[in-house]
């Protein structure tokens, strides 16, 4: 397994190049590029500029693990408004394009957000239909779409079995699950998500979660590896069971208040322990 971390965690005030150097120094193999999260990688970023970003990544001795986006929360493929839905299609297509430029084979999409106004069944059908369509584009690009499980925030596809059945309905080998082991909270067990969806996992986000605290306003329930309630032995064993050998990507929502760069090193060391099973 290889280690990666998102460019969205590069501390404010650091340039992209400085961030890459930090990522490399901390021992990561690659970087996750977040479309829409940082000034250097936006929808308006041209192809030439994207290629320049990739050159810098290569110069730093890193690979791109995948292309994610921070835009799905406002522009989702489940939107009723056709213009919003179209915008979602555009940024996902841009992810597919840039993934090819960055020579990676996976993107992350948050598909479906259930709200008081957008009911579950409506979101379900619209997401399925949209992903069937996007699956064709992903196949052409030879880049897999990983649907992230943001259980609590999406209020959608809340169990591993339902997620699996949903993917059955999408019925494309180019659409799988980008599993976030920190997003399951007290609604289940990350290791069971791994077991049930094993062959369909495109990438894995690592973070820990304080399962029983719930969200308290803006206070995050997500925390650094080994500080939460995830069973990391079980997660390691389940990864071995399904023979997952792909990217593990750190996604730290809770940031260090001081010495921001230290979080990169600490997280990399913790990821090494998850990979080796020294837990």
């Amino acid at each position: 397994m290889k280690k990666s971390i998102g460019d969205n965690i590069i501390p404010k005030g650091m340039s992209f190049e400085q961030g890459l150097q930090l990522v490399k120094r901390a021992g990561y193999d690659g970087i996750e590029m977040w479309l829409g999260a940082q000034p250097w990688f936006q929808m308006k970023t041209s192809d030439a500029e994207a290629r320049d970003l990739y050159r810098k990544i290569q110069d730093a001795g890193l690979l791109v693990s995948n292309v994610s986006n921070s835009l799905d929360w406002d522009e989702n493929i489940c939107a009723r408004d056709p213009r919003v839905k179209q915008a979602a299609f555009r940024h996902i297509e841009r992810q597919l394009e840039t993934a090819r430029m960055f020579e990676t084979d996976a993107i992350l999409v948050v598909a479906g957000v259930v709200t008081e106004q957008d009911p579950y069944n409506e979101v379900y059908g619209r997401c399925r239909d949209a992903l069937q369509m996007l699956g064709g584009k992903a196949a052409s690009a030879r880049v897999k779409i990983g649907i992230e499980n943001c259980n609590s925030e999406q209020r959608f596809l809340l169990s591993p079995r339902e997620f699996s059945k949903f993917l059955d309905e999408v019925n494309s080998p180019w659409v799988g699950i980008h599993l976030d082991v920190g997003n399951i909270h007290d609604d289940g067990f990350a290791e069971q998500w791994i077991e049930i969806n094993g062959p369909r996992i495109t990438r894995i986000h690592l973070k820990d979660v304080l399962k029983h605290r719930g969200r308290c306003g803006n206070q995050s329930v997500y925390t650094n590896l080994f500080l939460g309630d995830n069973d990391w032995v079980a997660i390691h064993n389940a990864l071995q069971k399904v023979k997952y050998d792909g990217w593990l990507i750190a996604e730290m929502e809770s940031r260090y208040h001081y010495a921001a760069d230290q979080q990169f090193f600490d997280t990399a060391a913790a990821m090494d322990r998850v990979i080796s099973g020294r837990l």
Partner: protein
Amino acid sequence: MTRRHILFTAVSGPLLPRLGVAASENGRQAGRWIVVDQGNSLARESARGFQAALRRTGERFEISDSVPSCSAELIVLPFAAALPRQQVLRLRTQVVSGCSVIIESGASFASHDEKLRQSVMWRHTFGVRVDLRPSAGTWPAGDSPDYVRYHWPADTQIRHFGEFFPVHLSGAEEIAIYRGRTVAIRKQIGRGELLFLGSPLGPILAAEDHQAAELAAGMIQHLMSVRAITQQGVTIATRS
């Protein structure tokens, strides 16, 4: 309407999965007889898992409530309980004469007396010695999930289910371990081959576990290629 007529109708209709006939059966003659499964709940659950595995191979199979007396090529005993003497002898005759048998121990959750009966039966019939000591016990509550590690027919990990029962090798080949102990073996007996699973696989198959499905497919494929099963079909024997 005769039983044969019912079966013939079933192979091309919606009853097909319920009858346990392989999906690719269309146009082929179905099994000769099917008896309603009256097994206990775990045997039934496990049998469902093995049926699903067999169905995936496309091979014809029948469901019985006892070890068949007619010659079979492969017999699967899911969550096998102690069998009446007559059936045990039948099973032995089948194996010696070239039948492949998969026995999944039904000792998990069984009473101590039932475990003993099974243990004596497998030892006397096939020379398979199962360790029933309490130390072989269960997976301690609160422990992280752990897996049975198969290294035949492929390196595969399967969720541990209920109690596990270490099996002594005594001339057999180890095919799986759990916590450092042998829990599954394969053994040549006469002209036949026996796979003895001391840790249940069928319920994991019924739960649609990917690795379990691959493992079972590999086992069945191996047994089929060795025995070249083409004519006789497969019988799942279930016990009440």
